């Protein structure tokens, strides 16, 4: 095996190897939609976040506009303080409602933003005051059973 053949093969190998890494990044992973877009932050407080996790999507009208950046418990109010990072291209009105939703029965938990009619927009670091907590299935079933029992006892 002479030198230039080895060089050629090593060149081909290294090129397709790095090509595979780039392909993994672009085609398999979603590098393009992740880090490149600059974003700003919004705060929202919820009574219960259910199964919301870090990096869960933030959607408006079903379109992903950001990610959940941080989740903390407010020690004073015992509410969950959630920080959202929203892409710079999207702005939301001050009366936007943030609600915690689930896609399908077993699907991922995400935050839905419903913009209102206010003329002023939320700035970086602003808090979304109107929030709707997650629907906890156990509580819902408990309530249903309780109502059933109450109506049954009345008869």
């Amino acid at each position, binding site marked *: *095996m002479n*030198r230039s053949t*080895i*060089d050629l*093969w*090593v060149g*081909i*190998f*290294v090129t*397709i*190897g*790095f090509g*595979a*890494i780039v*392909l*993994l*990044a672009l*085609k*398999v*992973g*979603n*590098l393009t939609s*992740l*880090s490149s877009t600059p974003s700003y932050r919004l705060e929202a407080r919820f009574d219960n976040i259910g199964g919301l*996790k*870090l*990096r869960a999507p933030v959607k408006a009208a079903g379109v992903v506009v950001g990610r959940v950046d941080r989740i903390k418990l407010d020690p004073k109010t015992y509410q969950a303080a959630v920080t959202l990072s929203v892409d710079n291209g999207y702005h939301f009105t001050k009366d936007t409602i943030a609600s915690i939703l689930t896609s399908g029965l077993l699907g991922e938990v995400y935050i839905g933003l419903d913009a209102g009619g206010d003329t002023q927009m939320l700035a970086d670091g602003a808090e979304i005051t109107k929030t709707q907590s997650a629907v906890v299935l156990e509580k819902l079933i408990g309530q249903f059973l309780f109502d059933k029992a109450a109506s049954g006892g009345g008869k």
Partner: protein
Amino acid sequence: MPADALTHGLRRIGLGTLTAIARMGYAARFFVAVIMHSPEAVRRMRLTLREIYFSGVLSLVIILVSGMFVGMVLGLQGYDSLNKYGAGDSLGIFVGLSLVRELGPVVAGLLFASRAGSAITAEIGLMKTTEQLAAMEMMAVDPLARIVAPRFWGGVVSMPLLAALFSIMGVFGAYVVGVRLIGLDAGTFWGNMRAGIDFWPDVTNGIIKSAVFGVAVSLIAVFEGYDAKPTAEGVSAATTRTVVGASLAILALDFILTVFMFRGLGI
């Protein structure tokens, strides 16, 4: 003497432990020595390129073919299991995550250890047996710089590239089975995959894993070769130790790395 018989077993355990510790220490010092001689591997680029050819290019066939088959099996098995829950559409994310995070680095590492690691050990061991290493030292050529460092770095460079190629071939194999054979929608397949897999941390974790495996396998291969008993038996034992030790090292390191990486994900 009964007392002697009693302590005999204990003494053997003690000797075994001490030998193991001494070997670990020797391996660690050897690793430092290889790293110290690494500038030589860069200066003699020609030698390192040759080793990348032998470890990387010649492993391409087994890596690509295995990746394809593993991906196709994942596609069939994954679809069968997922479809029981009506989630057959999630095949893309299932296959992509398993390959990128786990199977790509681990299986490529195991194949690399058997294909390239064993060859490196046998080559260096045989050089030692035929006193080529001693001859080099006589000519004031440091075998660590001339023989060991280029082979070590050839392996370290090749391994992450091979793992990435393995993952790509696996994803392609799953695409062939899932979309062409089973008839899933191609858009759903790729869309689910891209929605569920992030470059950071999923793809980067896979690359980190494969790089760590590359260092581990290459180090074990050159060390076992350099440390082999200079006999035909010794070289064969060293080659076996390379494959067994490197495979165990890959699986153990994989567990340790996965624990740390899942911590990082906040789970």
